[in-house]
């Protein structure tokens, strides 16, 4: 079976500086794939380029179709969703309007059902549905950003640092929901600094360093890898330096 998303030999550059070099990855249907790595490794840049926000050299195919000529909006309509690191919510609009706009490319009749699904996934959003997005707490904003992306009925949802700056209890909630998404047929490409949590729920993992993938494999194998453990999971032997 061919992969849902396949990226082959991707390069992304800011001017002359290559932030991502020769990266290849695949995400299959019903799969959670995670990219872990330190701050500045190029994870966010890679996701932005897959979404079409940054120009990418190389090949990106989604659901069997080459994405090279498609705009962000077309990719959204094909079922590729991104929840960006900064969430990019419509802060002066209420929760319900934010969600409704997430379904801009979906038939009106289906949008209603989508909203109910999002509200079941995030009951907190339903309580706050008339509140302005800008007045929500960080965790709620993250939920809203995910909810808005889910309104577009994505086949693959890319999450960029969903746990950044959130309280541990909310982080646990968000990771639980990510596994629920897989159960409901949505694949997830998860970029995380919180490698421990990400590797626990992922099927497959890539380790990114300075713009390149240095390791890939089953998430459980990666989690067991000594080097990864030392660098990203916070288990250190005495005398080891922290990266």
């Amino acid at each position, binding site marked *: 079976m061919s992969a849902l998303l396949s990226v082959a030999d991707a390069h992304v550059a800011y001017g002359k500086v290559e932030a991502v070099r020769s990266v290849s990855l695949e995400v299959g249907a019903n799969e959670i794939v995670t990219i872990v790595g330190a701050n500045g490794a190029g994870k966010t840049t890679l996701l932005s380029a897959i*979404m079409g*926000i940054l120009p990418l050299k190389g090949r990106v195919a989604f659901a069997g179709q080459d994405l090279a*000529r498609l*705009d*962000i*909006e077309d990719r*959204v*309509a094909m079922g590729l*969703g*991104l929840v*960006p690191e900064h*969430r*990019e*919510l*419509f*802060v*002066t*609009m209420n929760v319900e*309007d934010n969600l*409704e*706009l*997430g379904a*801009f*490319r979906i038939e*009106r009749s289906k949008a209603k059902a989508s909203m109910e699904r999002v509200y079941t996934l995030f009951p907190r959003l339903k309580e706050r549905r008339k509140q302005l997005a800008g007045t929500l707490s960080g965790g709620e904003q993250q939920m809203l950003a995910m909810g*808005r*992306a889910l*309104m*577009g009925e994505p086949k693959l949802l890319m999450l960029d640092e969903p746990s950044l700056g959130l309280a541990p209890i909310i982080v646990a909630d968000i990771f639980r929901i990510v596994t629920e998404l897989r159960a409901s047929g949505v694949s997830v490409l998860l970029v995380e600094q919180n490698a421990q949590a990400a590797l626990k729920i992922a099927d497959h993992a890539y380790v990114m360093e300075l713009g390149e993938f240095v390791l890939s494999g089953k998430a459980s194998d990666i989690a067991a890898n000594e080097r990864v453990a030392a660098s990203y999971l916070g288990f250190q032997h005495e005398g080891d330096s922290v990266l």
Partner: protein
Amino acid sequence: MNTTIMLFLLQDGITNGAIYALLGLALVLVFAVTRVILIPQGEFVTYGALTYASLAAGQMPGTAKLALALGIGAFAFDLFVARKALHARLIVRSFLTNIVLPAIVLALAIYFAAQKPPVAICIALSLVIVAMIGLYLYRIAFQPLAHTSVLVLLIASVGVHLALQGLGLLFFGAEGQRGPAVLSTAFTAGSLRFTGQSITVYAITIAFIVGLWLFFGLTLYGKALRATAVNRLGARLAGIRTTLSGQIAFLLASVIGALSGIMIVPITTLYYDSGFLIGLKGFVAAIIGGLVSYPLTAVAALVVGIVEAFSSFYASNYKEVIVFMLLIPVLLLRSLAAPAVEEEKD
């Protein structure tokens, strides 16, 4: 000064202020959605007014031909952009909106101009012609620059303004024109006389503001426009095309401009270059509203109208100077209140 004169001036000021309010709102809208400071807004006013006046006088307006010419240009742009992946459906749609539509309108304009049409038809044709010009201008002059800085967009905007003003001279000549009143009735209340035209101005302004409020508050496309204004990337990630929002914004702005022109031209003689100054007063109101606040813009527009009416009574030579001087304290206050802003990056 006696109260009668004061009431007169107040009435006059509010009538003008209502028009400035509409123009100011359109400017805020276009800027919020596309980051274009719409200098040619004034040309939409003159084009609307003079197209209407020409049609009513039984002349064929040159703007109808301009619309077709711009439509052909817009179609060429669409073809060029889509050259690598020609989708029949998109091409047909572009052909229909950019060529068939203005061709039909041109034919209608030629047909009706020959027989002095009724006011309603003149209004409808003028609105459609100017709306199309606005839409195609966005496609030709602004959409290709959508990713550039506010400064580049402003320069393009000034260019469009100059081009349209020159074409205005070509189409309508240097002579001023007046159009027939939409409503010719009048009544008096106390010492004030309300003409049908000024009532029309109030009614249409209020109807438009309410209509815009409903459009932005309740409809999906209205919300999409607001979303683009609030967060462009967020809107794109939701699948809302920036170009679609830009088109709607320009369409609304050109219709508002044309409508304002049609409402003024029965009251004042308009020349091919009168629009600029009218648009500029809407701009003053929009600046006072910080180019973001709709209610503040509307209120500021009324103040601008009233100040203008009073200064034209007391110091008519300095009328414009006094109106534009309103900006100085506002800008001073704003620059003191606002934190230093980094040069815009996106």
